């Protein structure tokens, strides 16, 4: 296999929490040397959050949240209260191709690492700032937290059961969405630099990236002046189209029954014929109430009751298998246990990675969602312990001597 695409590209990574680390994770997946700048005085919040191995909280290196999104990166600790720490960061930036941060607007300027500063350190630097609202405009100083960005984006207004209030996405979707768009931007800027020698600054607003996922909703408004209604799991052009209850998981988890669901999407009349045959009710295919899409949409509630009567007595795995064998789109509504242990497909694709970590061993983490045929695609290492690579980076990359590093440590610059 040839070297990974970004082998030799170095990234000074000032990011934390989720959007920024998700961005630099994509670049680490492509082989970049991502060096996270951290500080023990204010560690990344994800180092302090669950899940914890064996349900035992504690330490800065054991959180599943941090360990998932920091795979394949290096970590150095710097205490910017010490001017020497700034010098270390400057030397790192001088040896980097890209600098990425997701601090609030203005923080990098205050640290002395705004784009103009960075350009003085390295003239062709590519800099990306991931913020909630972007670097310009009247709300540029507004504070953005992951959960609030989903409703801000417009996604909540569009998502919800019929006649219910606006709802959430269930996770801070605008964070990883912003992060992965940021990674795309870095790659295009690297391409441009390879062609022209020119670096640049990129301003990313999570809010704007999220709205790019909502064009159908926005266009209903700009074309017709209408706010789209919330339609739950329905689809205007398919029925049945929904999520249906199946038998509960056979085992309890933490003493609790876990319910199970299957997603079914019947694309058209042909698929509806296959579907009713599969559930043993072929006569429904000729029933005037269900024979056409229009009829099925008009009688969707009744149709959904018929579907669920059938799914309720079966496992989600069985329903999905029977329908797929009949040529109908269906899937288990996968929870984390299903993905982790029960989905034979992800296992077969070697999606999960089990890199050895000094404090938690070789636990299962999500891997890379693509495979490249010619260049190496692998998660090179487990997430770093805090400051794990400080000495290595300072001596091998930045040319400090061991005694200089020891002095910096003694004076507190490497906290």
């Amino acid at each position, binding site marked *: 296999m040839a070297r990974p695409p970004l082998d030799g590209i170095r990234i000074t990574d000032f990011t934390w929490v989720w959007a920024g680390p998700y961005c630099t994770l994509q670049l680490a997946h492509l082989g970049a040397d991502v060096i996270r700048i951290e500080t023990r005085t204010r560690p990344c919040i994800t180092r302090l959050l669950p899940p914890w191995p064996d349900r035992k909280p504690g330490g800065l290196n054991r959180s599943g949240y941090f360990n998932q999104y920091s795979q394949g990166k290096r970590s150095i600790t710097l205490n910017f209260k010490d001017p020497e720490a700034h010098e270390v960061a400057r030397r790192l930036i001088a040896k980097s191709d890209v600098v990425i941060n997701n601090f609030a607007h203005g923080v990098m300027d205050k640290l002395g690492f705004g784009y103009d500063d960075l350009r003085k350190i390295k003239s062709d630097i590519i800099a990306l700032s991931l913020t909630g609202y*972007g670097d310009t405009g009247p709300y540029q100083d507004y504070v953005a937290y992951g959960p609030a960005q989903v409703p801000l984006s417009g996604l909540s207004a569009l998502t919800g059961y019929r006649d219910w209030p606006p709802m959430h996405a269930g996770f801070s979707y605008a964070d990883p969405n912003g992060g992965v768009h940021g990674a795309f931007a870095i790659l295009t800027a690297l391409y441009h630099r390879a062609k022209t020698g020119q670096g640049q600054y990129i301003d990313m607003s999570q809010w704007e990236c999220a709205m790019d996922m909502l064009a159908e909703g926005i266009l209903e408004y700009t074309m017709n002046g209408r706010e789209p209604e919330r339609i739950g799991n329905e689809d205007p052009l398919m029925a049945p189209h929904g999520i249906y209850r199946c038998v509960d998981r056979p085992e309890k988890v933490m003493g609790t029954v876990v319910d199970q669901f299957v997603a079914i999407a019947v694309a058209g009349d042909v698929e509806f014929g296959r579907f009713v045959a599969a559930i043993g009710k072929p006569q429904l295919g000729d029933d005037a109430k269900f024979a056409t899409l229009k009829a099925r949409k008009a009688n969707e509630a009744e149709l959904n009751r018929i579907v669920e009567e059938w799914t309720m007595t079966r496992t989600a795995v069985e329903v999905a298998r029977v329908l797929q064998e009949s040529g109908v789109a269906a899937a288990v509504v996968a929870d984390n246990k299903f993905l982790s242990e029960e989905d034979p497909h992800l296992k077969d694709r070697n999606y999960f990675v089990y890199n050895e970590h000094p404090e938690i061993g070789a636990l299962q983490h999500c891997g890379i969602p693509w495979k490249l045929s010619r260049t190496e695609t692998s998660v090179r290492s487990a997430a770093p312990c805090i400051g794990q690579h400080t000495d290595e980076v300072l001596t091998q990359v930045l040319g400090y001597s061991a005694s200089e590093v020891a002095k910096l440590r003694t004076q507190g610059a490497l906290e």
Partner: protein
Amino acid sequence: MAGALSSLKIVEIGEMASAPYASKLMADMGAEVIKVERPGAGDPARVRGPFPGGQPHPEKSGLFLYLNSNKLGVTLDIARPEGFELLEKLVAQADVLIHNVWPPDMDRVGLNFERLAKVNPRLVMTSITPYGLTGPNRNLRAEDLTVWSAGGVCVLNGGGPAHPEMPPLKTFGHQSGYQGGVHGAVATMGAVMAQLRDGAGQHVDVSCQESLASQLELTFEYWPYMKLIATRLGTKPIQPLEAMQCKDGWIYVCCVEEHQWKSFVDVMGNPEWAGEEIFADRLKRAENWDALVVFLEEYLKDQTVLDLYKKVQARRVPFAPVSTMGDLLNSEHLKARGFFVEIAHPVAGTHKYPGAPLKYGATPWEIRLPAPTLGQHNSEIFGQRLGLTAARLDELKRTGVI
């Protein structure tokens, strides 16, 4: 200044969201994208809408127009040998092929990397498929709902612990397609960088399911680390983090840090109830949410969304409006940043669309062309560029190849 990707040539065989979004990202940065549609019906996104006046029309579908601006459009039946031959000619002149042809259809028409690499050894071929090109689920049928479910995202959303009877809830739109698309664009650009370095192409296999499983926040690891299942029924460990109703709409009440709660209490005028021991910290506010919600509702019913939003943000509290589409289009912030763009289309008319996801300092994001009408560039591409005679074009059209 030309776009960052203005020297890149892409052929897309894409339908609905995933591959079209991947190549849209690149087209908007200057790449040339030739979109190949099936003769007759074209991309099924053409029937999805929304449509001006609610009247379906294949050249007026909002989803299609959004995803395919800046692209040249040709029609080609790649299942026919003459059609595949033309595809090979297009690919011979391209740097990248991005497609989301369903794997059983790839097998049927012989669309595979080995075959196309013979025509163009530099080719980066990206296959964005629901489950990827290997593994037992490779050939499964899929729609956005089933992929969103298979990726482990859907299970997290729903009516919450108060409504276990409500099923997991799909997020609006074609999110699994978009995520397969943007992750596919990242992987493709990786392969393009390697192409630039090595002068050689490769095959990129992108799984939409894995693109979703890769972004489950902290929930996936709850199983390997703690043997806990994360679902829509989980309770919030801290509060308030809820969409709540004001006089004129909904606002997302969001206090994560203690200082944010204190500032919000201050904005509320330091009511007496806020001093109660049961609301003393974020964990207690979650435990006693049933009591807290009554007080908050009472306060919020007299507030207007925009006013409260600005008041708390002035104190650095991260509330946000639950934006309607109208709120987005009227936002002073988005206007100042010039987010929405007008695109004039010869058939669909002029409408506002979502604009640039990122603003680049040196290279532009720009709309150069509206989405193509079906087969709009057939003569330009097949005739002028590939050198087919007018008679040959007519024949291919008559026989349904283009």
